[in-house]
């Protein structure tokens, strides 16, 4: 993908995010393994579990496109270098006239 993907240390809390293959909407992996369009439901992972979750996501081509790690705090808030972009992805966006 085009955006910069910061290298995250194994112990850094992270979420798995990508895009719905069918609609293109942003998705986050929830703790139960389902994909949600609601960023407040994202699962926080670290270490080997995080790696395993991403590896499994990468195999779900028809469901999620281009999954990657995104940095979050232990309680699931967006943080780190890409936080501006990730915050925009998680927000409702402009409709005609600038309304959300």
């Amino acid at each position, binding site marked *: *993908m*085009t*955006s910069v993907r910061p290298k995250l240390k194994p112990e850094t809390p992270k979420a798995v995010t990508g*895009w719905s*293959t*069918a*609609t*293109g*909407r*942003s998705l986050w992996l929830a703790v139960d393994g389902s994909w949600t369009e609601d960023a407040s439901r994202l699962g926080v992972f670290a270490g080997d579990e995080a790696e395993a979750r991403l590896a499994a996501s990468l195999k*779900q*081509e*028809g*469901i999620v*496109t*281009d999954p990657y790690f995104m940095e979050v705090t232990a309680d699931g808030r967006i943080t*780190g*270098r*890409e*936080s*501006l*972009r990730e915050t*925009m*992805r998680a927000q409702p*966006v*402009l*409709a*005609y*006239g*600038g309304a959300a």
Partner: protein
Amino acid sequence: MYRYDQFDARLVAERVAQFRGQVARRLAGTLTEDEFKPLRLQNGVYLQLHAYMLRIAIPYGQLSPAQLRRLAEIARDYDRGFGHFTTRQNIQFNWVALKDIPDVLAKLAEVEMHAVQTSGNCIRNTTTDHFAGAAQDELLDPRAWCEIIRQWSTFHPEFAFLPRKFKIAVTAAEHDRAAIRVHDVGLHIRQKDGVTGFEVWVGGGQGRTPVIATLVNPFVPEAQILDYLEAIMRVYNRFGRRDNKYKARIKILVTELGEAEYIRQVEAEFAAQRDAEKINLPKAEVDRIHAYFAPPALAAKSESSKLFEAAKVADPAFARWTRTNLHPHKVAGYTSVTVSLKPLGVAPGDATDSQMEVVAGLSEKYGYGDIRVSHAQNLILPHIALDDVPDVYKALDAAGLGAANESRITDMIVCPGLDFCNLANARSIPVALEVQKVFADPAYEEDIGKLHINVSGCINACGHHHVGHIGILGVDKKGEEFYQILLGGRADEKAALGEIVGPGLKAEDVPGAIHRVVEFYRAQRTSPAEKFIDTLERLGHQPFQDALYAAG
């Protein structure tokens, strides 16, 4: 008109069918994103921040009412009720689902539209003056040449895998409204001793390395222009840098070789073409294509219109709009109307489904079925009788399209930025809307006169910030948005690149800074006739920069 012949129809239908199969395989997971990405890009489909985006070609920015109605229908049925007109004279839909895109492409094909050549390293949609065929100051209608270039370049086997994308623009008017000097190739139609030909500019561009094009040949006769373009493309194909995406545009080749050596190579390539391989475009063929663009049969009118004059006296808002949004037509009693897509508070270039339908209807009723998209992200009704202008204005105004701001400070070119774009560093739409608010009073805006503000959300420069009289560039500093201000750019026949004037500003400080610059201009201009850019060029950037950073 753009001739979409049976050959095109079959090719496009095959393309849609092929893409439908590819999408089905992608949704089933049998095509990976890495495999699918080049295929979707060839069909105008991008994956953006929140959704897929579909970019649809509007050859030389020209639309029929049926086409605009179809775009309205797509906006309503597959998007969120609006579309976004871009500076490449195309339209983008920001919310279409991948699963629906084959259906959308099939619906577009029914009105002879497609998304071919809106992306990828090929020769893109050739753009031109949005007043083409109507403008009083044009030598001849440049659209025929855009069409000739389109026919020559579409699916041209040699040029499907260029080092990088390639954009051509054509103008036939002294005042360049097509920004030809910031295109890979810019063609200015000229006449010499009764022969039509082209001034050829090569290697302009924006992006991270902005360059003003080099004049490569002051006059190439029309019969030879395609052969000359082939020579330009061959030199580029052979020597353009494929090793580094950021150095792959033709502008880098021209800069690295130097003007003289580059010209020598093109001329050598042109001279080496064997007669048998020359296209030597026959005059009859040029005439045949010009005939497609025969002017509409405009009813005879007298020079002035009593109705028009009376309406101006009766309604000051209408009178103001006529001062800004009309452009002189070559036929007496007619004018070209700019439909501003920059009302206050709306993302620049956006139009709703119903607004598109209003414009389509006006074009049918008053405008000889001709609609254009301008690179400033507005719509144009090129042939409107002065007698009809009051009615056209009333209908536009009722639809929220009556803004009197063509080429004024609130008529900004703005890229989608971080509200939509995956490459963005900062938002551009909200900053533009905040700047607009400062200049919301129409009388104040009219007093300021012509002033172009262009806004991009990253160095790719889709919002043309390098060539705005004032440019605004969004940058990301450790997760926070900042905006660099540029001064002194212009995209016309005196094309120049703006200069970054100092440290970036926070979003909330941008409107005040722009306001101070504009007030400084108003205080310094010799008369209201001296435009912002002229005062800036007369005084130099420093005093404007001082005003910009003066404590607000």
